[in-house]
Structure formats: structure tokens, C-alpha cells
């Protein structure tokens, strides 16, 4: 597979480490009333779609960027690659 790194261009998938569902970005608020339930879901319950999937890849043999890769799990077709940091900021993650 080839991942089109937003900063470095097309790179072989062998340079990356796979983590999984990009929902791991959405770490729940530890101060929420239902924090225990939400952390449980965050930690254990993931979708495993046959089709489009947003997932986290880490460019370990490269610039160490975490990327959010949108990949079709049936065809390996990759339709979008973004810096996870940008995605996280967009989703309102901050201090």
C-alpha cells in the first residue's frame, strides 16, 4: 500500500505503524459524569466496518506524524490522508 503523506508525499505503508480506529482521538472528558462508561466505550468498543474506515497510522520510519487515513477495508482504496494533529484540533481537542 502507498499512503499519500500530507507533508512528504506518497510513502510505502511499510514505513508506518498501524494503530486502529481514528476514534481513539476522541478521548472522553475524564470529568464527565458518565466518564467511566465513556472511557469503557472508548477503550473497548470499536466499529470494524467492511468499507470506509478512518484509522490512525504513525510514520515511525519517517517524520513521526500520526495520520488519519481514510481507507476502504475491502479494496484498500485510500481516499483521504490528514495530519492527526489537524483532525484533533478540528474536533476541539485542546489543553
Amino acid at each position: 500500500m502507498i499512503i499519500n503523506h500530507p507533508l512528504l508525499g506518497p510513502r510505502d505503508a511499510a514505513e508506518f505503524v498501524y494503530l486502529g480506529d481514528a476514534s481513539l482521538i476522541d478521548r472522553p472528558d475524564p470529568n464527565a459524569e458518565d466518564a467511566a462508561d465513556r472511557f469503557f466505550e472508548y477503550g473497548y468498543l470499536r466499529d470494524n466496518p467492511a468499507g470506509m474506515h478512518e484509522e490512525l497510522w504513525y510514520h515511525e520510519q519517517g517524520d513521526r506524524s500520526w495520520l488519519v487515513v481514510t481507507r476502504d477495508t475491502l479494496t484498500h482504496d485510500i481516499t483521504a490522508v490528514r495530519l492527526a494533529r489537524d483532525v484533533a484540533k478540528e474536533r476541539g481537542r485542546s489543553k
Partner: protein
Amino acid sequence: MKQIRRIAGGFIDRKTPLSFEFNGRRFEGYQGDTLASALIANGQTLVGRSFKYHRPRGIFSAGSEEPNALVELRKGAFQEPNTRATTVELFDQLSAKSQNHRGSLEFDLMAFTDYLSPFLSAGFYYKTFMWPKFAWEKLYEPAIRAAAGLGSLSLEDDPDIYDKGFLHCDLLVIGAGPSGLAAARAAAFSGAQVILADEDFRGGGRLNSETFEVDGKKGADWAQALWQELASLPNVRLMSRTTIYGAYDHGIYGALERRTDHLPHSGGKPRQILWRIYSKRAVLAAGATERPIAFGNNDRPGIMLAGAVRSYVNRFAATPGKRISIFTNNDDGWRTARDLSAQGVSVAAVIDSRDIAPLTDIPHAKIVMGAGVMDTSGRKALKEITLTTGQRITTDCLAVSGGWNPNVHLTCHQRGRPSWAEDINAFVPGKHLPPGMQVVGAAQGDLTLSQAMSGAHQKAKEMVKDLGFTATRKAAPKASDEASMGAAFWHVGASKARAWIDLQNDVTVKDIRQSYQEGFRSVEHLKRYTTLGMATDQGKTSNIPALAIMAECTGKTIPETGTTIFRPPYTPVPMGALAGRARGKDFRPYRLTPSHRWAAENGATFVETGNWLRAQWYARPGEKGWRDSVDREVEMTRASVGICDVTTLGKIDIQGKDAALFLNQVYTNAFLKLPVGKVRYGLMLREDGIAYDDGTTARLGENHFVMTTTTANAVLVFRRLEFARQCLWPELDVHMISSTDAWAQFAVAGPNSRALLQKLVDKPFDLSNEGFGFMACAETTVCGGTPARLFRISFSGELAFEIAVPARFGTAMMDCLMQAGQEFDAVPYGTEALGVMRIEKGHAAGNELNGQTSALNLGLGGFVSAKKDCIGKTLSQRPEMNREDAIRLVGFKPVDQSQALSAGAHFIALSDAATMANDQGWMSSVAYSPVLGHSIGLGFIKAGHERMGEVVRAVNPAQKKEVQVKIVSPHFYDPDGGRQRG
């Protein structure tokens, strides 16, 4: 030996004769021969024995689809089994042996199995060797394995070198036959970067085997001229002897290039290169494979594919027989008769299954239309054929043509399914091709030459235009054309004798019918029940005929019956090529510590820790075993001073305005208020609340920290920190870099450690307890100006320091430490002594942080700050993880102090039976404590902290061992910590 079957013409270099050996006999051939063509030229018809029945077999094809002519090539460690003689390029002094016989090839002692064939039908082994069960592995399997299988291994290490490489191109053209050449030509003249790969050593494909004309030249000459022209272009890479074996994601293709297989010796060069080709577009021009027709005893040596006969006669100038017959269901077969006549080879008969008018007159040949071959005779070579008309014809070679199957394999590598084309009675590529791939020529089902070449030309032009190139204005090559009509005719039903479908696996028409009768009707079941289509040829000549027979049984059409899925590789890829250079020690190279050389010179035994080699202990003369050395290292360290290389611990340099805040989030304990110049122990959890890693982090400046991790987790912790930084808290101003390799670090431990370091640390640095107290850190210089970092931390429990210098000074630093330590009798210690001392101190390590234990279990519950959040905190508060009787890390000592403890033992109450239900925990680390004089252990036991003094059983069923142990504090040595603070 004379080359009795050598004829005129061909593309062999008669000026370069080559001598070779087959089964110990000397033969001669020419440069340009394959082993198969050279054997044919020498009249060697019998080349092997079949897999199951040990039937005599000859050469069947002229390419990589060969099911029969498998040989063991070369000698000694270079021996390679199951090599297809039809693809082996002849070289001088080549040596080959036939396979799968006991005794000689001519008189195989295993040939009796052929007479047992009524019993050895499909599923024989499954049905026969069912009981008794104990005999499966002890008796049946060894006996069957000894009798089965084809080639044998040398059982020596492969002495050849294999390489891997990466290539990039705009257009990859797979196959250098007429359509592949036409496609490459169109793309190359349009300026695209082109790679043209072909498994053969001579470009041109079928043009070398046929008598077609292209652009007014002989096809083979046209191909050679174009090959030369393409070779001169800077934007073209020609790769002969290269098989594209797999189509992978995103335009990546696997290729195996055979670099020295055609030479007597590799000469120190890589034998083969496994290429990964990154293509923007790919053209599949893999051609087609001829298929046989099944009839009685159709496996005799001398019976071969008609197209192969043309290859041997036209390309290799070697005739497979003196009186050749042709059995065909299509026009293409007649081409064989014409070519043979033109070459002066006698044609005995042409038998066409179609009841139509003869296509042409072949001088002196019997022409029989609307008939088939029913049976054959001749044990070691074909002698006679019997037709369905009852006629008998004396012939020594039968060329069979059942039509052509497009080589669709690579179109299926990404879930594509071929579709059935009624007009050519064959599967053609389906709609879903691997992205970026187009199929041209015979592989697409274009079985006429002009159509194939103009189609390929046009498609290649469109593809490079799509990539932004200006397509060439050159016209497509023009070819002499011959339409070929054929009929769907798969086997001669009138044949009573066994009719082979899969020659390599000895599967007959009867086996397929039996598979049907016994309910194995799906193609996938058929394949597994009969072994059809397995092994080196993967059913290239047998899959479709087998489907046709199954379709007859089920009364369905062939496409309804199905097709097997083709997966990579297209042809076998040697394990050596897949491994490349990653063999033996190079499979996973070691990382060496800065003191490695010193340690090796000083009696160290090394141990693998992750990728590192670390000194495990340093043996001294007179010591009888590792325990002697380890005990001494511990005693001398505790008595005076010891030195240990701890470079392997992960080091992460963390800087930024929010560095402290960041650490506060990833560690369970507080780091915000850690003063500059101080070190703190930190514990990390996984998000599920289980302990992950621990280490010390030093604050070198307001916004500058250095974290250490365990050796094993150095890479993983860094990865997680980057995840936390980029994905969880992207707004934090924090940056980090792994500095594990940048700093050499040594632990200097023991009561004399300060005195030793005082000799090395540049003045006026104050090492006293007041000036540099427990858990202090500083940046300073040593040995007259070498930059260094000092940490007053202790894993051993003694007064101890860690000193770090830039890695390039690491070796020198070890020398300096040992020299300065001479007056104190300083001792180097390895990982074993390190382990003993940490167990004596009750420190948790990898055995305790094993992915099952929480901070509470480890006795580190107090380290999870109640005042702040951290990774893992929320889930660590789950009730189940905080039960009253949760396991706790405590110490254990044997009641009978002469007994040794064993790690892995489980704790059972004295009165309970040793069962899973009564399991109370386990022993995680044990050591012999030279200070205490007995074995000690760390382990987890339910509510251990409230059970001090209680005696339980440590049961180790694996070692059949049981020891009574007393629960004690894990701090065996200096529990108040007075020594490390001194």
C-alpha cells in the same frame, strides 16, 4: 551423445556448444537452449516419474506451465528441487537429475503403485489411514511422506545471495510477447518511463515460436529489433528473466528477477532479486496457455501441447519426434502440422474433433476429421495411438491442442473474478481489475495477432495520455493475421483407459467424477479433495479441463460451475528471495552498547534484551558457573562499587513550555512541581488502567525534561507519547526526540561510588550529599571538559549515580570508570546482578509490569494522583480492579531456606488442593540473594499486604515442584533506604 533430434533453423547459437549432465549422462546443447529443448534435441523423451503412480513422464510444455518435467538442478548445497526443465536456461556444465523414483529413472522401484491405482483414487488417504489414531503421526505420516513428494532438499544452507530492490515507473508492461512489445513501444515512444518484464530470457514471446510476420519482417526478427531499440532508450528498463508474480495494492507489483540462474556460477553476485515495482499504470500482456484434451493414457512421454511442439521446432530447432501426430479441436492445431512440414519433420496424422472439411492438405499425413484419440501405448515413450475410429497410427509424438486459456492470473490478485467468453471457450479477465491495470492481447482473449497488437498499441497510448504524456503518432505494428476457430471439446468420452487431467498431481477424469459422486462438487472442494491444481504449476494446464468435466457431471455450464481464485505468486518464488539479506544474524541485527567491546574483552556473557546485546555477567578465572560470577558482582557492588552499562534504557528528550503539563498527563503521579535539578520516578498506565511502563524523569530546566523508559518499551513509549502529543493534546507546546542512541549511560553503584566519581567529575562540582542529594540531577563536565549528565538515582539500593556522556565518548567513559575504580576494586556487573539487586530492593520490572497488573497490584496505588487526570486513571478506578482481595506485590522467602524458589509458581493455601480454583497468585521474579544467603522472590498474591508472615505453598506443576513460602515485605534489603540516601 549426438543431438539426434536437432534440426535446421531456430534461435540457438550453434557456435556456442554447451556440455551438460542429466542423470549422470553427458549431453550437448547450445546457447539459447532450455534444459528441456536440449533434452529433446538429444532424444531424451523420458524425464521424470509422476507424483502418485510413478508413471513415466516426458516434457509436456515449453514454458512455466510445465507440470511434468521437474528436475533437481545443480549439486550439493546449490541443489534446487522441482525446477521446471522448460524454463531452465542451459549453461555449460549444467547438472540435473530426474525426481521421484527409487532406483533409476528407467526402472523405478515405486512403479508398482501404478498397478494399485484402482485403490489410490481421490480421497484414498483420507479414507484409509483413519485408525488407529496413534499411528497418524508415528506411522502413517512418515511412511506416506517418504513415498510422496517430488524433489529433495540438500538440507544444507543456501549458499547464494538474494537481494531486494525497489523500482518506479509510469507504465509496467507485464510480458514481452507481441502485445506486450506493442504496448511498451507505444508508451516508450510517448516518453513515459516504462518497465518491460518477461519471464523468458528472450523477448518476443510466441513470436519466437510461431512463423508470423510483423511489419513485413519475420515476427521473431521484428521482436529482436524492437527489443534492441527499446534497450537504447533512456526511459525504458527491459527486464528479461523476470516474472511479475503478484499484483498488490496501489499499483505495486512483485517481481522476481533471475540474475545468475543462467550462469554456471553466481560469481558472488546476487542470484535473484525480488523487486517491488511501483507503477502508475500496468499493462498485463501475459499471453495465453494452451490446454490439453483428456483421453486414455494421455500422459505418456511424447504427448505434449501442440504450441510447445511448435516452440521446440521453430525456436529451438529440436523436434520432439520423428513422426508426429496432431490431435486438435481448433484451427490453431493445424498450424503445428504446417510448421512441421515446413521444417521437414514428418507428420503422421492430423486428428480433428470437429466434423468439418480438412483445413489444409498435409503431405503424407492421415487426416481424420470428427474423431479423437482414444488410447495410446508405449510405456516409456509413445509408440502408437488408437483413434475413436479404430484406426491405429504409429507415432512417437502427439501434439495436442485443446484451445488457449488467457493468463488472467494477475487480474484476480485483488478479488477480481474472470468471466467466461463463449467465443473462445475460455475465461477472460472480469470487469474488476486491479486499479491502474489494463489487459491486452491473448491475456485479454484477443487470440489473433493483429488484433492483439493494435489493441495493445491503442490501450498503451491511452494510458500514457491519461498520465499527461503526448501519445506517439507511430502506427500500430501490422501483423499477418490468422483467425483461429475452435470447439469446446474437453475429453474423449469413448476412452475407457485412465485419462489424465492434472499431470503433476496425477488426477484423472475418473477422480473428478468420483469427487462429484462423493459430494465434493464446489470447485474449492474438488481442488482440496483431489489435490487438483496444486503444487508448482498451480493447475495452469489442468484447471479449466477439470472444470469442464465437473460441469458435465453437474449439468451446469462452466461459468456456473465456477473458477478457482488465483493468488500470488504466479510461479513459485524461492524462500531465499523472499528473505533477501534478512537471514541468520542479519534477520534482526543486534544493537551493541558502548561498553560492548570492553565487556567482550573482559569475560562477559551476553544476553539479548530487545534488539540489544547486554552483558549478563562477567566471568572471572576460577568461577565455576554463572552464579559464582553474579554473587560476586552483587557482593562487591554492595561492599564497594560496581559499574553497569544502562545505555539501553530508553531516553526521551522532552522540551517546551507545556512539557511539565504534558508529563503530568502521561504519568500517574504529579510532575508539575518537580523542581529543576531533580529526578522523579514515574509510572505510566495504559488507558485501560493496567501498568504500562515506568522510569525516572529528570528536570534539567524549567522547560526541559529527560525521560527514561524500560529497554523493551523504549520505542513503544515514544510512539505513545507522540500519540498523546499529536492526537490527544494537540494544543500543548511540547516537543520531543528519542535520545537513546545519543547518550551512553552508566550506573555507578555502591558505597564508594561517590569517591570514584569525584575523580572524574570536573571541579568544582559538588558531589556531596548536601550538594547533590538523593534524586538530584545536573548537567556538568567530566574528565576535563567532556559534557555529561549526572543523576543520583539508585536501582540497586546503594548510594548510586548514573552518568551519561554523548555516545561517542561511551567506550572511553567505560575505560575511565574502570581505571578510576581500580583503587576501590570496582567491579563491572551485568544484567543478572542488576536483577538480583532490584529483587532484593523489591523494585518492579518487566516480570511485574507484565500487562496484567495495575498500580494497586504493584503496591504503587499511591502513585496515582487523586488531584489530576492521567492516561488510564478513569478505568483504573473500576470496582473489579479495586477489590479488597486484589493481588498485591509482596516478597516471598522459603520456609526451608535451603530451598530454591521458582518463578511462575502459583500460590495455594496450605490446606487447599493445587487447582485453578484455589489459585491465589503467582511468583513473578526470583533470585538467590548473596546478601541474605537464601532464595528470595517477588510475586502477586491476593491481599498480600495484609498477610505478612503467613505461609503458603508455591506450586509449580510444570517443574513438579512445591515449596512452602512465607509472605514478607518486598523490601528485603535496607528497607529504610538509608544506604541510597547516604
